């Protein structure tokens, strides 16, 4: 059996790459994909912790996260499409009306 720490290391690397992409990309769609990446990393951590601790609730938590991620994607993509129809851009740098 592979050590659960190795799974969590992979999850940490995935989370870090997702966070990095969130910071350096300007395309709203790619930023959304980076959020999905981070959610998946957390899911992987929960699964390996649940496996290592012999607790099925880890998998139940992943189930809930999947539902919330699906809802988030639906609303987020609808917002992106609405902004695109209005402004013809998906770049977050050009959405700066609320800058103080």
């Amino acid at each position, binding site marked *: *059996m*592979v*050590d*659960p*720490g*190795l*799974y969590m*290391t*992979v999850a*940490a690397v*995935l989370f*870090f*790459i*997702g966070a*990095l992409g969130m910071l*350096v*990309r*300007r*395309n709203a*769609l*790619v930023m959304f*994909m*980076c959020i*999905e*990446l981070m959610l*998946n990393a957390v*899911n*992987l951590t929960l*699964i*390996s*912790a*649940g*496996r*290592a*601790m*012999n*607790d*099925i*609730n880890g*998998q*139940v938590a*992943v*189930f809930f996260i*999947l*539902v*919330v*991620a*699906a809802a988030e*994607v*639906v*609303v987020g993509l*609808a*917002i992106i*499409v*609405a902004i695109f*129809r*209005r402004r013809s*851009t998906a*770049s977050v*740098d050009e959405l700066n009306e609320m800058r103080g």
Partner: protein
Amino acid sequence: MVESLVFVLMAIAAVAGAVTVVVARNPVYSAIGLLGTLFAVAVLYVLQLAHFVAAVQIIVYAGAVLTLFLFVIMLIGVDKDETREENLPYQRKAVIALGSAIILVAAGLALFTDFQWVPAASEALIPESTNGTIEAIAEPLFTTWVVAFQATALLLTIAAAGAIALAHYRKRDI
């Protein structure tokens, strides 16, 4: 032995897909990279006996969410390259410095202290034959977490209604 081999292959595939998501200039390539990562992570779930969650991952993420992403990419166009020029003067250097510091500290903690990733296993072991099956997940889902389950139903309804409301806006409203 087989598990170690599959783990290494899938870990490499997952990280490669994640890097593709971040560095690809075309959003379609980003979506394909995300697809690879999702499949690799699903295999990692199977390795840890989470069979039902792996199946849901493939159906919901790779099936529904990725299709939605690709649909929106095609809808709003892929030909616009984003500008890579930086308009924040020093933040990128600060992020690189902070990120490297975090990685070094985490690696040092993991390697040089007797760091425990998870506490020891509890006494009530789940038999391998039932771990990760639909029955095993449904039992706590519909008893202990039934209120949360109802709340997710409400959440999905609100999300669907919100998406429809956003799609039906008139141009002067926003």
